[in-house]
């Protein structure tokens, strides 16, 4: 795994460098073909760079003083660039002239004169030397930039990778007093595996982990076969351990287990950062703080940011839909709420779904149980053992992950073992069964509200309890 992770990280960095170079080539080629598209491509590059810088700047929370200092240093870096270009204009132009001559020789197919060869080499060396001096000066500016930034901000920059959409931890970091964990999704996966029956959990877990490995392969590249099997075994061993925990232990340790599942991806990210730093050092240029914040594009972005007034208009509290308050001098009420509840989103918690429908305690119990059993039945059915060894759930998820909805559908069209029913028919049956129970325990209005909502019963998060046969 380590070798694969390392080479994947290397590959990613080199690919990025090559892709950047290739992008310039594309723009040149489009110049004559379609000037408007050429301009769009250039604009895309600029906008992407600016989006990336803004994502980073948003995550750094630069103070006003820091912003001004960064602007000043970025301008200084810009002046250094201009000065270097002016001072070495003749060096660069004479290298260009030498290359033009060289091209002429190569086009005619003739021998390159020794003198020309020497001239090209010496001009190239002179340009490299000019570049080296220029970067030396820039690195001085970068050192001063690093003093302006706090250690914690430098940490954020080191971990940052250029992006159009900021990563979760920059966009929505874990907050004071917030119950939800950053590894919530993976914890939910583990809870799903935990709560299936002994007789049926392994094929479902395999299918879920196969899907996760597919996702991992999109980031790290394809697994060699033996490595894939080893990784799957590791995850299944982890799942066995998770299943053996009692409820309380699981609640306390689920975050750690979730991190353990995604460990290869985290290792890759660490290595990729390391390689990016090495690569940047090898180039002789700037490291990340300078690369991002001494970029000439920073100046207008930060200046615009400083100009913006951000005070919010005051809200008239008499005009809002107020919070509930206790009526009648402290008289309690059994009602959960008298306010209309917002419609649940696509993957709601059961508590929200129940509150929105106005279910009482008994209805909630029945509905939760029915939905939960339906969800489990669905997975157990699809992952049930077959004589031919196929795992239909696994195949279905793999095709879905690959964007092949048709073939995924086709898998569900296959006949179930020892039955004349297809998987699809069984899935429909399971869903109908759940809806019948709901229809019985909900009143007409509640059931109609659910039916017209478009809420998918299989997407409701019902809670955590162990299966008992």
């Amino acid at each position: 795994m380590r070798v694969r992770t390392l080479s994947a990280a290397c590959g990613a960095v080199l690919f990025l460098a090559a892709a950047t170079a290739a992008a310039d080539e594309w723009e040149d080629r489009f110049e004559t073909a379609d000037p408007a598209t050429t301009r769009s491509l250039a604009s895309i590059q600029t906008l992407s760079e600016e989006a990336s810088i803004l994502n980073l700047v948003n995550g750094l929370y630069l103070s006003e003083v820091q912003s001004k200092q960064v602007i000043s240093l970025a301008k200084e870096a810009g002046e250094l660039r201009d000065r270097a270009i002016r001072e070495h204009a003749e060096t660069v132009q004479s290298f260009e002239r030498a290359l033009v001559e060289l091209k002429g020789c190569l086009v005619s197919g003739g021998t390159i004169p020794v003198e020309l060869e020497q001239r090209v080499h010496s001009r190239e060396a002179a340009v490299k030397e000019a570049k080296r001096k220029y970067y030396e000066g820039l690195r001085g500016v970068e050192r001063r930039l690093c003093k302006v930034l706090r250690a914690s901000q430098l940490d954020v920059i080191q971990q940052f990778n250029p992006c159009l959409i900021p990563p979760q931890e920059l966009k929505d970091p874990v907050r004071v007093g917030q119950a939800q964990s950053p590894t919530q999704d993976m914890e939910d996966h583990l809870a799903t595996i935990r709560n299936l029956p002994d007789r049926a959990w392994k094929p479902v877990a395999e299918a879920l982990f196969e899907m996760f490995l597919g996702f991992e392969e999109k980031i790290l590249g394809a697994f060699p076969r033996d490595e894939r099997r080893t990784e799957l075994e590791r995850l299944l061993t982890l799942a066995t351990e998770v299943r053996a925990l009692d409820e309380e232990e699981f609640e306390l340790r689920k975050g750690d287990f979730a991190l353990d599942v995604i460990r290869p991806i985290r290792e890759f990210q660490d290595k990729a950062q390391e390689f990016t730093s090495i690569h940047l050092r090898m180039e002789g240029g700037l490291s990340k703080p300078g690369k991002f914040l001494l970029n000439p594009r920073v100046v207008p972005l930060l200046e615009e940011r400083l100009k913006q007034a951000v005070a919010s208009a005051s809200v008239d509290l008499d005009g809002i839909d107020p919070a509930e308050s206790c009526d009648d001098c402290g008289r309690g009420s059994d009602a959960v709420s008298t306010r209309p509840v917002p419609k649940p989103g696509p993957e709601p918690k059961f508590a929200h779904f129940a509150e929105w429908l106005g279910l009482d305690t008994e209805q909630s119990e029945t509905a939760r149980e029915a939905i939960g059993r339906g969800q489990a039945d669905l997975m157990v059915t699809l992952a049930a053992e077959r004589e031919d060894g196929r795992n239909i759930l696994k195949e279905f998820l793999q095709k879905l992950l690959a964007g092949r909805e048709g073939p995924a559908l086709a898998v569900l069209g296959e006949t179930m073992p020892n039955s004349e029913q297809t998987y699809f028919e069984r899935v429909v049956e399971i869903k109908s069964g759940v809806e019948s129970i709901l229809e019985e325990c909900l009143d007409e209005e509640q059931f109609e509200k659910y039916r017209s909502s478009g809420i998918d019963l299989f997407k409701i998060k019902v809670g955590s309890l162990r299966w008992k046969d």
Partner: protein
Amino acid sequence: MEGLSRRAFVRGVAGGIAALPALNLVDLFAQDAAKSNFLREVDARYYKKFSDKRVQCLVCPLNCILNPDETCFCRTRKNHDGRLMSHAYGNPCILTIDPVEKLPLAHFLPGEQSLSIAVGGCNLRCLYCQNWNESQSKPDDLKNLDLPTGKAVESASKKDLRVLAYTYTEPVAFYEYMRDISIPARAKGMKNVVATALYINPDPLGELCRTTDAFAVALKGFDEKYYEKVLGSSLAPVLKALEIIREQKVWLEIVSLIVPGYNDDLAKNREMIAWIVKNLGTKVPVHFGRFVPSYRMKDLVRTPVTTLESCWKMAQDAGIEHAYIFNVSPHEGNNTRCASCKKEVIQRLGFKTTESHIEKGACGFCKAKIPGVWEWK
């Protein structure tokens, strides 16, 4: 199912399976349904009985008067035929291990991990609650763990956790459970910390102060109308309760979430800071936090960092020795500065301490005492 094409239906099913985070967990205890949320009913500790089987809860200033079968505003206690019983006991809906900094507490045993416990219910109705699924539900309606008080202490002990935190929902709503854990926890040398809106009556608070080592109190605004309209509560009792904590000399930190357009008025915040300085002193740390859209306030923007910085600077100018900014990281406002020599004695990234220069509760540079709880005693 009528009118639904096969493809569309299966897409929905596929979406359900593919969105595997959504395929959560299974409640199959059909025959034990009533017990599946580990309902335990215990006598409420503070209430009054009337001769006609009505009861009046006395835990919080709402002082709910209940007929038989009625439930308090906090949703956790019910009149059972003339006895007020709490349903929030031994059945936490949240159990995690967190750094104490998450409460937030910046001057209390930095770096220490706590066993964090929350039970469903709350005696406020904050429109922006980020844990509303739990706080705005009855404990009976949530999926809970079975954690009697002794087991809570044992769990913490087994994990080498020396701090128990009552947080996420509203500990006043599970008062008896919190109290009954905090006593044996104290006896074992552990510490108890409480994150609360402090809408609580003086007597229960006084008792709680005896076993609590630190409070992170959400002083959510400084305006009665704001408390009424946005929180479904009242400010005056909270201010009174803060004074009680000060009198009891329990470590206190104030937490104020700034909601743009609602409680970000600088004049009002200046008033709040002046009240803190006058009534609680300048050594109480004050945290100003960034609001993030949630629950019934999803349409607002996040608090601009400049607004937080204004409040933060205003607090320092008014003499508050230690003011902070939270939910914004990295930021200078996350760090602890010595009030005497102004050097940074603790640097943080998020909830993590990255560097500390506190030695025996004093600044490592100039040796001035830094208020707080820095060592185990």
